[in-house]
């Protein structure tokens, strides 16, 4: 067991992600690897919940919500696969997403296109804009309350608005926890070894 542990700790990452403490009391304090450089979890090649057509729509929505800018966007970050993963594991969420995609396709058919993905980008954005505005008005806190508190009034919104809110939430969660989101876009720089914590020397 002790041998195994030592073996595991010999794995040393790139410079800057490993710390070395000058302590002899316990050799295990000496070196330990920080895992920030480990590869991201693999993205499956095919969706498990969505059909190919549905997945195409989810991908288009993710791209519209978080596009590539000076940094990669939702598509490069594997957000559609993350949304598929969530839908696979949450029947309620899966049902809402599926109904929402069907709603978008019906809206597209009123404009003479078979599916949402067939619309011009400007028409797609025009369709989503009012949904987003309505979804942004949703209360931050929903759900039942306990402990003798008065119940909150339920958030009543049409299916397409609840759908947009769900897709945007999943896209945000999926993107900003991805390497492209957290490290490339937000420039997360933690999970390191620092000899001391710096004093604030700025004017506030």
């Amino acid at each position, binding site marked *: 067991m002790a041998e195994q542990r030592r073996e595991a700790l010999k794995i040393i990452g790139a410079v800057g992600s490993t710390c070395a403490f000058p302590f002899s009391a316990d050799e295990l304090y000496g070196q330990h690897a920080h895992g920030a450089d480990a590869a991201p*979890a693999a993205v499956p090649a095919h969706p498990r919940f969505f059909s190919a057509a549905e997945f195409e729509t989810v991908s288009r929505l993710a791209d519209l919500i978080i596009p590539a800018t000076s940094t990669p966007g939702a598509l490069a970050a594997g957000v559609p696969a993350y949304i598929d993963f969530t839908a696979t594991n949450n029947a309620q969420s899966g049902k809402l997403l599926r109904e929402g995609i069907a709603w978008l396709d019906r809206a597209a058919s009123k404009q003479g296109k078979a599916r949402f993905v067939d619309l011009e980008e400007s028409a797609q954005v025009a369709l989503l804009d009012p949904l*987003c505005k309505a979804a942004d008005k949703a209360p931050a806190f929903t759900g039942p309350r306990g*402990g003798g508190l008065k119940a909150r009034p339920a958030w009543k919104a049409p299916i397409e608005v609840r759908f947009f809110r769900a897709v945007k939430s999943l896209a945000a*969660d999926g993107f*900003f926890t991805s390497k492209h*989101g*957290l490290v490339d876009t937000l420039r997360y720089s933690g999970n390191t070894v620092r000899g001391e914590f710096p004093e604030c020397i700025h004017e506030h």
Partner: protein
Amino acid sequence: MASKVHDIVIVGSGAAGGTLAAHLAHGGVDVGIVEGGPPIDTRTAFNTHALPFHFPNRHIPTMKPGKSGFHSERARGVGGKTLTWNAVAWRFSQRDFKGRTFDGAGEDWPIDYADLAPYYTKVEREIGVCGNRDGLEDLPDGDFLPPVPMKCTDVAVMKGAAKLGVKVIHVRKATLSRPKFGRPSCHFCGNCMAGCDVVAKYNSADVHLRPAMKTGKLTVYSDAVVREVVVNGDNRATGIRYLNRETGSEGEVMGRGVVVCCACVQSVALLLMSKSARYPVGLANSSGHLGKHFIPHLMGGVQCFLREFIGKEPANDEGFLDHAYVPSFMHTRKRDYARSFGVQFNYQNRRSVGWARSLPGFGKQYKESVAARYPAFLTFSPYGEMLPNPKSFIDLDPGQKDAHGLPAARRHVHWGANDLKVFDDMTKWSVRILESAGADILTVSDEPRTNHELGGARMGSDPRTSVVNRFCQTHDVKNLFVVDGSVFPSASEKNPTHTIMALAARTADHIQERLRKGEL
């Protein structure tokens, strides 16, 4: 295994059990400590340095694959919740022990600050607590290692609070700010509550139990889920019975005395389960007060962006989570409620960005707006003291059984009028302080949440209205003790662990004295 009779059997290996076991073993007392979970190698078992994108669901599990331990709400593993705590270590003040005397509501403790002060010091000297000596009457100073500097965003909050006459101080934590005790100092990797893999942060398994085992006086029984404290015909506790966590096979550990240290709800549940002809409604429950007076901390929450940091270069400022604290100030001001609150803040971890979904819009602007606000995001969590009420208690579920076939414990929480006044005022003050510091408020929680489970086996002088006496000894059974948050008659607004450890150290002294006199 049952043939050996220990001097003392301790149930639970967290802050209380670990401290107690170490103090007793070093004092020459033979101790058996029984823990429901597995032994945990703190160097290699935790996902301390993982990032969310290493997992398909973007959620970082506490344990590495194949390592058992902290998968459920109830912490099971040698070291208990000290393995995943945030290490905040306040001393309570005389006001906290004498709440009823101070503002006429709730209960007084049967002990004073002076009774615990030497034990706070003892604990600080053996585990290492960093902090500043602020000279506040309500937050007594201790034997501290140097404080860790505040974050830039903390300094901004401190200046905003100062405009309102509210003080912000350095946090005090049982985490080393200097190398000591053969342990390295903190290296600010920013994920303390996922388990510290160098033991810069105190945990009872590495800091208390491992050294104590070298005395030869301490036996650790792990994976042993205790189902009953056994009491004989002479009204003496004789040991415990357990189920092996994996096989379900039964076992027992015998002792001349038993101490229950399983963290509030589980301690109360164990005593309620330990029924006998003499104690038909639960062991040490002749008062009928076991399970009552459940007083967890009530917690609020405000999320905001400090305007001066919007669009600035993101800092590597996860540090050791929160570096600063707003100590109670309302206890000295005019208010229409009893008790007070303090605020823990800026302990969010920058590797999760759950707030991003709450910003408006979509597309390029939305993405840029999240990125611009990332360095400016801050959470504020006021903690208030709850008063006991008859609708807040712990009991056993008559229907539901846990994985071991034991009755599941239930928590009932009802907010009283005073609790809601505390909640409203601490939320109002949080917003006021943040706005004074130049913040845009994102969300304000409109409902108290609970944290730090306390009460249920309260300490008191009157055996008719309390479960244990001033030495954590049950009124009913002389060689049975309870040491953890369950004995708190009033909760304070301050994080409880340091007080739990000081109580454990004091109880260890008391037990040794009783053993010397042959009274146990």
